[in-house]
C-alpha cells in the first residue's frame, strides 16, 4: 500500500483485520539506519539551502564584491571527488565481502578527505594573507562561513569513518561493517554534492 492509501484507511473498520494484522510496523522498506541517515541529510540540506538563499539574497545588491577564489579550490574539489570515489570503491568491496578491499579503500577515502580539509585551510590562509578577512566584506564572510560549515560536516563524517575504521582493524566481519561503510559512502557523496553546489555558487558571481 502506498503512503496515501495508508492515510485514507478507515481505522475503525475491522473487516480487513486479518490482512492488517500481518503487516509489520514499517512504513518504508528501508533499514532504520538508512532512514535515519536520510532524515539527517534532509536536515543538513535545509541548513545549506538556507545559507545559499541568504547568499543569493545578499548578492543581488550592487555593492557586492566577489572574493577572488584561490586556484587551490579547484585542486581541493578534485581531491574531494577522489575521496568520494574511494569510499564508493570501499562500499563495492563491502558488498562483495572483500574485507581487504574495504580496509584499503576506506583508508584512501579518509586520507583524501583529510587532505581536502588541509587544502581548505591553505585556501583560507591564502585569502587572509592577501587581506580578505571575514569582516572586510559580506562576500568574504559568506565564503568563510560556508566553507567552515562544510568542513565541520566533513569532520563529523570523519568521526563516523574513524569508528568504522576501528571496527575493520579490530577484525569485525565484513557483514558487520557493511552498513557502516554504506552510510559513510552515502554521506560522502552527499557532502561532495553540497561542495559542488557551494563552489558553483561562489564561482558564478
Amino acid at each position, binding site marked *: 500500500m502506498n503512503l496515501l492509501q495508508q492515510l485514507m484507511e*478507515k481505522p*475503525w473498520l475491522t473487516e480487513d483485520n486479518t490482512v492488517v494484522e500481518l503487516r509489520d510496523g514499517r512504513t518504508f522498506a528501508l533499514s532504520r539506519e538508512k532512514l535515519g541517515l536520510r532524515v539527517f541529510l534532509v536536515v543538513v540540506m535545509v541548513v545549506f539551502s538556507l545559507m545559499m538563499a541568504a547568499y543569493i539574497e545578499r548578492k543581488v*545588491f*550592487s*555593492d557586492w*564584491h566577489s572574493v577572488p577564489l584561490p586556484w587551490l579550490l579547484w585542486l581541493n574539489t578534485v581531491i574531494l571527488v577522489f575521496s568520494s570515489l574511494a569510499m564508493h570503491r570501499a562500499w563495492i568491496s563491502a558488498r562483495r565481502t572483500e574485507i581487504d578491499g574495504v580496509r584499503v579503500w576506506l583508508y584512501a577515502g579518509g586520507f583524501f578527505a583529510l587532505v581536502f580539509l588541509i587544502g581548505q585551510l591553505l585556501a583560507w590562509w591564502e585569502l587572509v594573507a592577501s587581506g580578505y578577512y571575514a569582516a572586510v*566584506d559580506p562576500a568574504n564572510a559568506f565564503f568563510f562561513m560556508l566553507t567552515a560549515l562544510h568542513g565541520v560536516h566533513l569532520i563529523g563524517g570523519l568521526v563516523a569513518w574513524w569508528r568504522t575504521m576501528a571496527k575493520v582493524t579490530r577484525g569485525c566481519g565484513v557483514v558487520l561493517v557493511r552498513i557502516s561503510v554504506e552510510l559513510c559512502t552515502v554521506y560522502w557523496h552527499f557532502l561532495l554534492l553540497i561542495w559542488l553546489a557551494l563552489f558553483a555558487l561562489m564561482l558564478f558571481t
Partner: protein
Amino acid sequence: MYVAVMIVLVAVGTVVFHFMSPWWWTPIASNWGYIDDTIIITFWITGVVFVAVLLFMAYCVLRFRYKEGRRSEYEPENKKLEWWLTIITGLGVAGMLIPGLFVWNQFVTVPPGAAEIEVVGTQWQWSFRYPGKDGVIGTSNVRLISGDNPFGLNPDDPNGRDDVLVEGGDLHLPLGGPVKILLRSIDVLHNFTVPQFRAKMDMVPGMITYFWLTPTRTGTFDILCFELCGTGHYTMRASVVVEEKNAFDAWLGEQETFAQTMARAGSDPGRKASLVLNETGNVAAKDRQAQ
C-alpha cells in the same frame, strides 16, 4: 454541573467585558477608519464562533456527563456534518479576509501627489525632515552623518539644500492632505507609531520604508517607538501636531533649512563628505530602497 456553569460564565463574561470594557481604541485621527471597520467585522464573526463553541461545550458537559453503565454513541465519522462545518468556516474566513485585503490594497497604494515627509529614528530620539520649497527630499547616507550633519544629508544634492530639518522637536502635519511618511533609521530597528493614526511601520537601518495616511482631525498626539530598540526604547517619544494648513505653513517657515544649518556651523560640508567616502571606499552611494 458547576463545570458547565463555569463555561457559560466564561462565554457570557467575555462578551460582557467586551462591551463594558473602559479600554478601547482611541478616537481615530486619520483616514484608516476602514481598519477599524475590518476589526469590527472580525469581532462579530469570531465572537459568534467563540460563544457558539463554548455554549455547545457547556451543553455537552451537562447533558452527557458520566453515568455508570451508559455507552457513548459510536459514530466515527459524519462526512455531511464535517463538510458543512468546513464550508461555513471557510465562508467566515473569507468574510474576514476579503475586506482585509481590500483595505490592504489601499494601504499599500500611495495616492499620487501625497506630500513626502521623512522621519528619522535614532536611539532614542525622533527627528523629522520636510522637502522644502522644491517638494523633493534630498538623498542621504549614513556614512555622511557627523556632528554638523546629524541627518547624513548629501551636501552635493541640490534637492537637499532647502530641506527643513527638525531635530528632536515635534512633527507637524497639515490637516486633510495625504502624506507619505518615509522612515529611516540610522542605528537599530525602530517603529513609528501614533495610536490615533492606526498605521505604523518599522524603520530599518539601510532601508527606507514608508506608509501613507491622511490626518483627519486636528490635535496633538503621541509618537511612540513600537519596536524594541534598546534600553531607552520606552523613552523614545515625541508629539505630532495636526493643524490647519495656514498654521502648518507658518510653523514650517520658522524652521531652519539644511543650507542654513550648514552655514551656521561654518563648515564646508562638501569637502568633508568626499573625505568620508574616500576612507570607506565601498560605501554605496545611496541607502538601499525598500524592496
